[in-house]
């Protein structure tokens, strides 16, 4: 599932990439500069374990920890060094991601697997402690690490390396970066969304796209879960045939054997749905990843809006200051200002006072021009960098989702083949009745 732009085949634990797939990825990402971590290192989230301990308010709690294993790739032939490993909680993954979000706002940061199980069909547990949920979360966390490790920019982050390398002291190191102070408040971002005048058109389009993506993938996940539920019902009811055939066969002489063996096939049919739906969960997880990616995409757009808004605000301030200077210099008042009015009411200023004001304004204007230049440069830089990552993301998304749809088709084919097999066997038994 993760990108890989390495020359060598990187061994990635627990994903479905094949040699051919990696070849394809390489073709698509050759253009990208920089090495990624995956070139040098195997990363996996190997296990999950339950722990109990005291939480922040000194109460007992049970939580799950995940074993993050890393192993350098360039071991010599025949050598198989033991992996380095450490345990991480989900909250630590969250912290890592938040740090990345703040530190690289122009990047579409890979999402984490969901915190709580959503879009469950009835048989699947919504309990966070449920072993199936934990297992799928384990896989999701691994996928997250692989995505980060294969990103041309994110993979070089020191905090990320630290996360993989040292269990203790990592949290402190993250907080020491002071990333929290850099985080934009939600309110500020919302404000910007409504008031920005000239956002880059491409970002506006991207915003719409990310909304659509979010809406359609969540709808798809909901309907899929309902379909899965119903399919479960169909298969399971056939299990009753097994029971009744078996009971009936007891009183039949000629039909007995046929009935009995047909019954076994009906039981097999009924139980086959469990595997089928488990495999489909994997497909659902792929869709979910892009549901959450849509949010990350949106965040990049929001940041642009914020920066653009700050630029516009700075430019506006500058313009108004320049106007004030003009008014002061020529003595004309073009705009209404309280100062202007009071000075009219309470008498003109002295030339000295005017000079003082003018020089303050000049200073402010100079500062303002610097600020605007700065903000402009920031914005341009942001747009440039963001768009590079957005293009990268788009290609990744198209690749991944196409692959997901293909593997969905393959799943359906497998379901059909199993169905043909069971009913062919049953037909054979029926014909012997």
């Amino acid at each position: 599932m993760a990108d890989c732009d390495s020359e060598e085949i990187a061994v990635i634990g627990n994903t479905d990439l094949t040699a051919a797939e990696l070849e394809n990825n390489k073709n698509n990402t050759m253009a990208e500069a920089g090495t990624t971590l995956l070139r040098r290192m195997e990363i996996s989230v190997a296990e999950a374990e339950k722990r109990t301990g005291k939480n922040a308010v000194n109460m007992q709690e049970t939580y799950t920890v995940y074993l993050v294993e890393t192993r350098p790739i360039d071991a010599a032939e025949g050598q198989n060094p033991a992996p380095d490993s450490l345990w991480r909680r989900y909250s630590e993954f969250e912290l890592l991601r938040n740090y990345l979000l703040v530190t690289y706002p122009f990047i579409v940061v890979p999402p984490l697997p969901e915190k709580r199980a959503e879009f469950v069909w009835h048989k699947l547990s919504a309990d966070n402690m449920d072993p199936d949920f934990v297992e799928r979360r384990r896989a999701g966390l691994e996928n997250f690490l692989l995505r980060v490790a294969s990103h041309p920019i994110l993979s070089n982050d020191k905090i990320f390396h630290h996360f993989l390398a040292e269990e203790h002291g990592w949290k402190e190191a993250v907080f020491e970066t002071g990333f929290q102070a850099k985080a934009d408040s939600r309110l500020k971002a919302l404000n910007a969304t409504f008031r920005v005048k000239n956002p880059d058109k491409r970002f506006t389009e991207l915003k719409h796209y990310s909304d659509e993506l979010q809406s359609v993938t969540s709808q798809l996940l909901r309907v899929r879960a309902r379909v899965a539920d119903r399919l479960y019902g169909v298969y399971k009811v056939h299990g009753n045939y097994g029971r009744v055939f078996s009971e009936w066969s007891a009183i039949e002489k000629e039909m007995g054997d046929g009935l009995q063996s047909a019954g076994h096939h009906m039981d097999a049919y009924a139980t086959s749905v469990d595997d089928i739906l488990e495999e489909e969960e994997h497909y659902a997880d792929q869709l979910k990843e892009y549901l959450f990616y849509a949010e990350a995409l949106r965040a990049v757009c929001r940041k642009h809006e914020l920066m653009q808004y700050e630029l516009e605000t700075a430019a506006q301030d500058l313009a108004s200051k320049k106007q004030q200077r003009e008014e002061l210099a020529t003595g004309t008042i073009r705009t209404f200002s309280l100062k202007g009015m009071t000075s009219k009411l309470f008498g003109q200023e002295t030339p000295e006072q005017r000079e003082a004001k003018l020089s303050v304004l000049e200073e402010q204007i100079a500062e303002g021009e610097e600020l605007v230049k700065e903000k402009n440069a920031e914005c341009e830089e942001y747009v440039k960098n963001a768009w590079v990552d957005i293009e990268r993301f788009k290609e990744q998304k198209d690749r991944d989702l196409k692959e997901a749809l293909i593997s969905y088709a393959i799943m359906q084919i497998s379901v059909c083949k199993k169905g043909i097999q069971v009913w062919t066997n049953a037909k054979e038994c029926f014909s012997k009745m």
Partner: protein
Amino acid sequence: MSGIIADPTDSCTPAQEIPADLSGQMLELDEDDDLEVFSKDTTLTDGSFFNASMPTSPASMINQYKFEEEADDKDIFITVDNPESHVTAIETFITYRVLTKTTRSEFDSCEYEVRRRYQDFLWLKGRLEEAHPTLIVHPLPEKFVVKGMVERFNDDFIETRRKALHKFLNRVADHPILSCSEDFKVFLTAQAWELTSHKKQGPGFLSRMGETVRAVAATVRGVKNRPEEFTAIQEYVDTFSQKITSLDKVTQRILKEQKEYLDELKEYGPVYTLWSGSEEELVEPLKGVASCIERCCREKEEQISHLSETLVPSLHEYVLCAETLKSVLRRRDNIQADYEAKNDMLANKKTDREVLKEEIDKLEDKVECANNALKVDWARWQKNMSGDIRGAFLSTAEKNIDYYEKCLAVWESFLLSQRSEHSVEGTREQQTAKDACPQDT
């Protein structure tokens, strides 16, 4: 029009008559008159033609003229079709055309066409059972009264009933003894007024009442020396009745689940289409998946139709058969109980012993006849039953295979279309496909 259509060498298709197509609703027996109040709306909801003279689906047309067990010496062919509504001042009811073609000598002509209503079928069944109390007469479809549904009998119901009536008459025609019944002949040949007058002649309603009363009395009295083999049959019938009822329920439940699954599936495809609207590169695969799902929906619909036209009615028929069997066994018991009762009286009687003895001898013969008739018919019934049930399940299994095969083809062609775009993908998919189905390589 009728005739042997099925290929004599086609021995592997099950000898199948049209089973009654009963809808998935709960059917309740109603003791009232068979007044069929219904709508004259002839709009086609599911393709079943209301006024056609032939059942329209090709499968049913072939089935209608298929061989039955004694195919080689079949000399009488009966079809029930062409339901029509009749409105009188008092009531509205449906009649069916009964067409008979025969070479039997006891028939004056070789072709007859009459119209009969459900009441008439009921009468015929009653007469046959009276004349041959221990023969197993194939059941009639139930009277159908759904709570709250007073006015309308829909096309489905009428078609279901028509098929069941058709089967009923053909089973009677097949039966070596029942088909010789005079009442049967009258049923097939007489014009409406002739039938009415014939009905009035024989023992009718009152005699049936009498039988019911006697039956109740006999149950109270009980039979003393039931032969072992009939006890065995009784035990079999009790278990069979339970199992077939369960199967009927399970099958109805499957039908329900399939319908609900289809409903959800119909919502599913369109979401992929919706998604394709906001994508560029992914338009083709998304639309492809949507169309695959749509196609699978259509196949599912056909599978559901087949289930409700084949297996559901077949099983339901045998639920009714089980009741018939119980009645037959009861009647046999009653005949024996009658004899035993009279026999006991002999010990106490001082006078009229000769007359009594004569009666007892007659009853003894009656018991003997009844037992033999039942024994033979029992074997016959079992053969028919296993043939029918086997046929229905075989057909269902075949349809299910067909459904999966069609869906398989749909998804495989989608895969092919994606594959043809990039050869690299081809190797990837083969690899993933191999991973998904290791046993297929």
